């Protein structure tokens, strides 16, 4: 029910932890993008979703990057393609610790 706030009245937490990542989670385990989401929410507090997406663009981008890791995937792909190109040209050999021949260490 919209205005009754049942979960706070009864003192239970049925699905409040599902609403946002930054809500108190079971076992106290923080989400991975907890900090980014919290920053975006604090920046866009009271603005509404559309305005928050537009005006807090930096925080929103960081949050989306943390969730989807698109920029990371793109970056790694570029580096790997460049590495394969260089290996084919013979200009680069990966060092020992990148070919699995590293001796085991803690």
């Amino acid at each position, binding site marked *: 029910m919209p205005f009754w706030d049942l979960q706070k009245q009864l003192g239970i937490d049925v699905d409040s932890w599902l609403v946002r990542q930054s809500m108190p989670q079971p076992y106290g385990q923080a989400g991975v993008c907890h900090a980014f989401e919290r920053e975006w929410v604090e920046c866009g507090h009271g603005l509404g979703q559309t305005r928050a997406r537009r005006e807090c663009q930096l925080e929103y981008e960081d949050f989306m990057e943390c969730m989807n890791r698109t920029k990371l995937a793109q970056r790694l792909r570029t580096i790997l393609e460049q*590495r394969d190109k260089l290996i084919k040209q013979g200009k680069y050999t*990966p060092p020992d610790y*990148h070919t699995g021949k590293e001796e085991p260490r803690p």
Partner: protein
Amino acid sequence: MAPPKVKQDMAPPGGYGPIDYKRHLPRRGLSGYSLFALGIGSLLVGYYTLVKWNRERRRLLIEELEARIALMPLLQAESDRRTLRMLRENLEEEAKIMRGVPGWKVGESRFHTDRWVPPTPEELYFLRPPAELDREKFGLQNYV
């Protein structure tokens, strides 16, 4: 006229002896009530043993958790050192690989913030053979 006297196969004189036709169920074993008592008694003994052992298991589990808590700084420090070493190696390799590529900033952060963002396993192991990444992710898993 009288029936002819023929030799017939008759019963012995005086008839046959008594024939045993009634059923002989042996009256042995415990009674019904005592069987119930035996069953329920064994159940109760089992429950009692289970409860005692579960409490003992809980004590052992608490001991293992406390051992983990005690070792946590050491393990966390080792893991952090390993992460930093891999990030450093990746940075150097990235500098070597992307030397000729125009417009590439080595070690550029994807985020607009200065905060330390813990690296993902993919990010740490991307230059190594995929077997190492699989071992990192699933090496300790027994569930299929």
